[in-house]
């Protein structure tokens, strides 16, 4: 029997209701995540990239069931997470952990580093106190810090050190899947490089699978085997790194690639700059959601809305796509 994907997401959606009176009049719906599907093979890194409000962080939180989906399926190691009773969900959560963007906001300032890292072990009653201390030392060394850091408080640490602590805590329970939500966005570039190298190294040594989320296309391309590009709640393109980098199909992917400033003046090129700004998710454009900004769109006939793209995203990688 061939092992299936580690994580399978099907038709995932999250709607938030906003405004309106308590009777529900004038209430409007934001479709933050709208029918997202993908699969993650064991040991693979899938990158999720997009601009603010595209739904990438909401997708992360839905997968971990930190917020409840409005629709869709999430299967981790073959088990349907949405159907699980609380007790079993609690057990399944050991297998997936999250690393957050803000190493300042996500570490409890009143706890010592050692306690922060040991907390998941204590919650899952996994080790006696003495063993916990040993495991904490192990984890600190794993993320490249001296075990003496266990006695420090978060405020005594630099941003890069805090992010290492966040990673150590995420690894405490031997998870299979790490969801990294903008893990280096708050860091300076020299520290960013250290943390990215650490994440790659850990993946190799521990056989981890990553869902790596960032607004920075170059960081995502650097880290990922495959990349999913999101726009206004949908995945508009999903493919292997080389395909996304060298042969992007969707106009938004092309625009995104072309918009990133490259630190190389010899690569100054003509940019494809999209018109205008991202539409409000409260007033979602008809047809293809990118069409109002798309430099390649066909002009619709008067009175007709542009067609939605006819492409189909296949769950495990290949992309077929027609330009509108």
């Amino acid at each position, binding site marked *: 029997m061939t092992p299936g994907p580690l994580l399978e997401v099907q038709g995932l959606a999250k709607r938030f209701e906003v405004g309106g009176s308590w009777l529900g009049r004038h209430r409007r719906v934001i479709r933050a995540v709208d029918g997202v599907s993908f699969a993650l093979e064991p040991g693979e890194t899938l990158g999720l990239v997009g*601009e*603010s409000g595209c739904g990438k962080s909401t997708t992360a939180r839905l997968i971990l069931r930190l917020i409840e989906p409005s629709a869709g399926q999430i299967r981790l190691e073959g088990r349907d997470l949405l159907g699980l009773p609380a007790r079993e969900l609690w057990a399944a959560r050991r297998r997936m952990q999250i690393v957050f963007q803000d190493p300042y906001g996500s570490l409890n300032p009143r706890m010592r580093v050692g306690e922060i890292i040991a907390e998941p072990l204590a919650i899952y009653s996994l080790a006696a106190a003495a063993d916990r201390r040993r495991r904490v030392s192990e984890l600190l060394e794993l993320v490249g810090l001296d075990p003496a850091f266990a006695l420090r408080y978060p405020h005594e640490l*630099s941003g*890069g050190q805090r992010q290492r602590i966040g990673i150590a805590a995420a690894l405490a329970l031997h998870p299979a899947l790490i969801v990294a939500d903008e893990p280096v966005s708050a860091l*300076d*570039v*020299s*520290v*960013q*490089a*250290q943390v*990215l*190298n650490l994440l*790659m190294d850990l993946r190799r040594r521990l056989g981890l699978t990553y869902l790596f989320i960032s*607004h*920075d*296309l*170059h*960081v995502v*391309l*650097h*880290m990922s085997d495959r990349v999913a590009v999101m726009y206004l709640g949908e995945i508009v393109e999903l493919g292997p*790194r080389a395909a996304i*980098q060298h042969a992007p199909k969707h106009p938004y992917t092309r*625009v*995104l690639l*072309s*918009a*990133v*400033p*490259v*630190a*190389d*003046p*010899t*690569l*100054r090129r003509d*940019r494809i*700059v*999209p018109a*205008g*700004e*991202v539409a409000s998710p409260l007033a979602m454009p008809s047809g293809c959601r990118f069409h109002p*900004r798309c430099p390649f769109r066909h002009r619709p006939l008067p009175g007709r809305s542009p067609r939605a793209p006819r492409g189909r995203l296949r769950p495990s990688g290949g992309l077929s796509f027609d330009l509108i």
Partner: protein
Amino acid sequence: MPPLLQVDDLVTEFSTGTGPLRAVDRVSFTVDRGEVLGLVGESGCGKSVTSLSIMRLVPPPGRIAAGRILLDGEDLLVKDAEAMRQVRGARIGMVFQEPMTSLNPVFSIGDQIASAALAHSGGGRAAAWERAVEMLHLVQVPAPAERVRDYPHQLSGGLRQRAMLALALVSGPRLLIADEPTTALDVTIQAQILDLLRRLQAERGMAVLMITHDLGVVAELCHRVAVIYAGRIVELAPVERIFARPLHPYTRGLLRCLPHPSRFGQPLFSIEGAPPDPRRPSAGCRFAPRCPHAIESCRRDEPPLEAREPGHLVACPVTT
């Protein structure tokens, strides 16, 4: 003719409980007419304090402790507050990362641009209002005649940045100081604003001092670059040169630690350690503790910023 802006041995200090903290330490550079100079470095390196010093807007307990800042040959540090206000209104325009720090939330953007136009070129209120609409058109705000009545909170981040640019440019300054103007924006909006800045700069022959942490922004926009580390300029060179042949180990490290399209997936070069604590200055080169090339003398003597080639200055005696 003197350069448009000349900064000589600028020292800016912040007084703390444990004595003065030097955020900017003997920084010197010039900006020529029509030139875009990038000031690049990581958080806390002193690049923003340098720009605030030029505008004489360093917040207390900070103060300019030494140096000269010459605009068109005139020393800005000897001017009184009113004369300095005139300079900021008319001769130096400013845009910041967060537009809400310079836009007043209780006036429409039209009111703010029009009153700046009125203060600068006089004329009537109606003419100033016309001018505000023109400026919004210039910075490519869609439907400027309607948006001119909007308040800052009604605008998206990208439009706010455009409105701030319109406000900064209404008096036709010869120098624009832009402090991380695109850092808070999404990448497609950043591309729009960078294109706009480049176009306005070329059309108006305006000089720009661009403060940024982003080497990509530098490569796209700047003519020359000064790299700052721990309050000191460590390298200053034309932009093609700094990317093709960086000489300072810190500059080299910065360039190599970015994910690059030709090396995706390969381990990144990383600069070990962290910048020094400015409260505990040490002797010698500030980068020496993190530098793979450091030799004995680096830890003892602070290397001066010297021309290695015409126009290419570097503060490192070791690398070639």
